[in-house]
């Protein structure tokens, strides 16, 4: 059976049979870099298109339908437009930081891709602290946003960046708590082990109510962490016109835009890995026939299906809810999400110690 695992393994065999170990590593690294960049561009195109179609259908519109069949090349056309536009640097801006900021945001989004298991035994770097790596690195992205806001020499940008700082730092906590709730069950931070621990059922179902609560909190917290509506305080286009990227144009803006979508992909991938079993197929108890059919679907399809479902949920939020105010946003975190997730973690620990989970 052709699977991503087999393909990568056979490439590795082919290379190591003919070349020295250093050359193999170098070539493999460049292949991975190429793949990562391609994935990046593809994800950007697909997610932006998906967002536009989802929003259109929710808003009883047709959505993009002019460029290509059913408008599928719309985002490609947009990218070309953005690439051709003048990259404008406002007068009085801190030019170095201004130009650096989109790359910081972008590189952090790229680094986050590393530990994600896209399919069975198919990850760039299955390091033993995978989840911790993601939480640690993703909090750095606020620096890029603060950089952009400060360097733009624009009050709107500054306000947006400050809001973003307050928001990301506070929501990081409950996102971390929600992740910790599952880590308590798995006992490992390694992504592959987390996935393997769910071979007999996803944590969302095995972990009783605390897992469901953790899942809801995780979705809310990461929506806030990625600056998505209803928590898009950093952009808040009706209040701050564009927030931290008000002054950005052309390709620099496109990088911010792309990074936002990559971040959504990553947090949804992590959510799918932790709660929905990553690339594990959906099994129901002793239904052998059903389970066998489910096994037949490739693991990468399972992973992407779960991830895109979560992405859709986050998009669904965006096109339904009004935006929160900044103080209400912090209220929600500190008065509701944080205490609930702390108690939730306590319960989950109890469950894990007593072995009440399935």
């Amino acid at each position, binding site marked *: 059976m052709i699977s991503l695992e087999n393909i990568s393994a056979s490439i590795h065999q082919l290379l190591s049979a003919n070349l020295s170990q250093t050359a193999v590593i170098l070539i493999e690294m460049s292949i991975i870099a190429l793949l990562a960049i391609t994935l990046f561009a593809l994800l950007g195109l697909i997610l932006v298109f998906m967002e536009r179609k989802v929003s259109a259908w929710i808003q009883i519109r047709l959505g993009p339908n002019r460029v290509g069949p059913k408008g599928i090349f719309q985002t490609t056309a947009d990218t070309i437009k953005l690439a051709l536009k003048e990259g404008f640097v406002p007068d009085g801006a801190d030019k170095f930081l201004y130009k650096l900021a989109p790359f910081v945001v972008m590189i952090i989004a790229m680094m986050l891709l590393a530990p994600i298991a896209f399919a069975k035994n198919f990850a760039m770097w299955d390091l033993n602290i995978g989840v911790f790596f993601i939480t640690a690195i993703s909090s750095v992205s606020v620096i890029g946003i603060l950089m952009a806001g400060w360097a733009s020499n624009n009050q709107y940008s500054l306000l947006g960046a400050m809001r973003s700082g307050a928001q990301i730092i506070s929501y990081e906590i409950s996102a971390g708590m929600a992740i910790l709730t599952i880590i308590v069950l798995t006992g490992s931070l390694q992504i592959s082990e987390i996935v393997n621990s769910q071979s007999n059922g996803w944590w969302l179902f095995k972990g009783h109510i605390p897992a469901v609560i953790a899942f809801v909190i995780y979705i809310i917290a990461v929506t806030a962490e990625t600056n998505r509506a209803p928590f898009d305080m950093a952009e808040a286009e009706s209040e701050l016109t564009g927030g931290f990227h008000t002054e950005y144009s052309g390709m620099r803006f496109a990088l911010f835009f792309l990074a936002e979508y990559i971040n959504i992909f990553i947090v949804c991938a992590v959510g799918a890995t932790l709660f929905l079993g990553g690339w594990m197929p959906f099994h129901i108890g002793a239904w052998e026939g059903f389970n066998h059919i489910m096994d037949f679907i490739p693991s990468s399809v399972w992973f992407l299906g779960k991830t895109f479902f979560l992405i859709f949920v986050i998009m669904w939020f965006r*096109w339904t809810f009004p935006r929160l105010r900044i103080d*209400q946003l912090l209220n929600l975190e500190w008065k509701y999400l944080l205490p609930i997730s702390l108690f939730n973690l306590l319960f989950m620990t109890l469950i894990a110690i007593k072995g009440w989970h399935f």
Partner: protein
Amino acid sequence: MFEQVSANNNGELVINVGPQHPATHGVLHLLITLHGETVTKLEPNLGYIHRSIEKMCESLSYRQFIYTTSRMDYLSSHINNHACALGVEKAMQIEIPERAEYIRVLMSELTRLASHQLWWGAMAMDLGALSPFFYAFREREVINDIMEETCGARLTMNYFVPGGVMYDIHPNFVKRVKDFIVLFKSKIAEYDELVTGNVIFQNRMKNIGIISKEDAISYGCTGPTARGSGVSCDVRKNYPYSIYKNVQFDEVLEYGCDAFSRYQVRIKEMYQSVRIIEQLIDQIPEGEFQAKTKAVIKLPKGEFYTRVETARGELGVYIVSEGGTTPYRIKFRSPGFSNLSALEHMVKGHKIGDLVAIMGVLDLVIPDIDR
């Protein structure tokens, strides 16, 4: 005009909101001072779309000047035209046929509905919910189609002329309006589900933009803005014009004084408008749709003040006539202008996000303010 200031001596941030800003719905310019996220000072700077309609009207005849008023508050253009036509008719002392009165009131109420729907969508958009805008437009489009069929235009109709209306209603009019009411009643529940009942929306709207009854009167607020503070100011009730004294409807009053009260006034007003339309739509009497008037209208010497209730509040048309064919002076007392003056009072001490919410609920139409 304003020098480039980023921060004043108190460490407060000075921000230009507008003239190009998504929340101002046009070319309104607000100079706000922020202490952190809190607005401490707000100063409106108007005139970006000032066309001096009052001066223009001084050289237009009494038939011609009505069309300019469609361009003031373009969302209640019928009602603006109504005010002018009423003013001219009052001065000429002519009676207009009953059929014309019915058509006028029906059209005015449909306009009010359309205007409130657009406000609802735009306000939700200001708060960051983008989908309600399209749901609101779906219903509004039906009204626009009805208008287009009868009046020949969708926004700036110029349908009311001194002495009646320009043409008779279209044969389909009655049926389509009835269909619309059925549709509207089935869809209005969505408004509550999606926005009014939403916990985020309620938290955003409650206890912001507070203006007491006394302040609302002192600032000259009218329309839903004042009625949200419990000020009875519906011209249709207090000084009934046209056939409003014969129809049953309630003046919507809320006593919360905050943005949410104003929101509720507008939502409830939609039901009242539907009620008025339902009463009148089957009762349109047969007869002429226009009274006979002279080709050239001359008004007697004197001063005439007409007030009507637009979707935003009270519109006053003050005509000073010297007995000629053109007005000597015309003053339009537009509702938005006075409502805007209360904005600073409402916004002070609230967050910048509240500024957007309060402005959304004020329902400012900038050409109405600038004229």
